[in-house]
């Protein structure tokens, strides 16, 4: 108010119109930027989580391998055990069958069982009795069967029966 009685009105560089537009444009740009940042954030979030999940999955796959090994191990044990159990029962049945084969007249003294052979030492009243009752079944079971008789002073025969099964591998 140096020389004038009143002070001049305030002068603005930008008219209200311009200011409104400036504010409007800047607001829109800022909003779009915020939206963009949001998208970028979610984007990186997904990427990170995807990696995390991938690692988890790999870990799970390792666990599965682990379990599979254990399962395999158990199955092998089971197989072996069952084979053994079966073998034992088969063994028992074979021996039982064999002894059941023997008729009352014939008495066994000694039995030697090998994997592919069977040698029986016994006493029989007559050859025929042996041939009919024991030799025939034996022959049906084994591939080769030989018997040697020894006459005893009582009139009975000691016999030694050698029976073999031929394996395709040729083992005895």
């Amino acid at each position: 108010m140096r020389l004038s009685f009143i002070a001049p009105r305030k002068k603005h560089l930008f008219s209200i119109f311009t200011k409104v537009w400036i504010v409007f444009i800047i607001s829109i740009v800022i909003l779009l930027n915020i939206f963009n940042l949001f998208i970028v954030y979610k984007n990186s979030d997904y990427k990170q989580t995807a990696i995390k999940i991938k690692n988890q999955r790999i870990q799970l796959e390792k666990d599965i391998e682990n379990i599979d090994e254990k399962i395999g191990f158990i199955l092998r044990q089971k197989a072996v055990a069952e084979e053994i159990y079966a073998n034992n029962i088969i063994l028992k049945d074979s021996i039982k069958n064999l002894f059941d084969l023997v008729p009352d007249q014939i008495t066994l003294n000694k039995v030697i069982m090998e994997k592919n052979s069977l040698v029986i030492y016994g006493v029989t009243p007559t050859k025929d009795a042996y041939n009919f009752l024991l030799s025939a079944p034996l022959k049906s079971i084994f591939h080769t069967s030989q018997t040697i008789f020894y006459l005893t002073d009582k009139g009975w025969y000691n016999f030694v029966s050698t029976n073999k099964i031929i394996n395709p591998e040729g083992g005895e």
Partner: protein
Amino acid sequence: MALTKVLQKYFSNIFISIIHQDNEWIITSKVVRNGVIKDKFIENFESDGRDNIPSKMEKYLEKLQTEYNFAYIAVFLDSMGQGAISGISATDFQKNSVDMKSVTHINIDKNWVVYASFIDINWIKNLFKNSGVDFIYSPFIVQNSLIKKQTPREQPTLYILNHNDSVTISIFENGNILFGAYFQTTTDDKIGGEEDWENESEEEGLDDLIELDNMGDDDIGGLDELDDLGDLDDLEENEDAEGFEEVKEKDKDLGHFSSGEEQVESNLELFGRDILIYKYLTSSLKEFYKNPLYKSNFIEKIIIYDGYEVSNELIDMIENDLLMDIEMHKINISEIVCDISIKEALK
């Protein structure tokens, strides 16, 4: 904002000065950019009185303000309720019978004061409420800017600022004011000034003086009373609120007053307004010399800043009858107001 201030000078600023003369408004506009005046144009609008602004003018102002982002409107204050006094303190106001509470004032050089009543200021603001106004300048300010352009004179010098509608008289010594007086020469009721002074007799004028004096020290409220004096033909000359002592002494000058008709007859060369100017001049001088309030030194020189017209006869008369040297300068008040506003806005 301060930033706006700094950047402003690089943009186009338009300074519009509005002044009322006779029956028209004169609008002088200057466009300033980077400290250089880029454009200047002047526009006139017919006025139907000081009460309102022609709508064409409002539109013109609006157009200018829309065109230029930085626009300053400066108005020349020619209402009655203003003046200038020596000194700046409250006592000085009191001595000059000016009510400090009802005027707004400006201290110049920490020495003297230019004042104007709030009523007048608000009147102007209201007048320009649609277009706005930035500066309101007193004629004393205009006169002062002209005085400052010259080297300060040690001897007391009387300055006259002549405007169509007003006469501003001040006496300076060494750059300080000793006396200031403001006279309005036309009112709204007037169509033309010349006829009226003929109708109105000098005596009536004198009567006004006397009556004013009798009313005591008028503060600006006195303006209303002056209106009441419409009983008289027309109130053409309104003294400013400072009470003038009754001018009674017979003096060479007074002689001219007391017989106005005589004056007309004896000085046929002095016409119309010049008579008024002469009258104001002499009554101011009288007041200055007689009133103990004013430190009186003898005035040798009169400098006239003329924004209207002053006849040679008047100059002769002053030189011969008052024995004073006269310096005349023709000026364009409207443009000066413009320049003042440029200086003030762009500091």
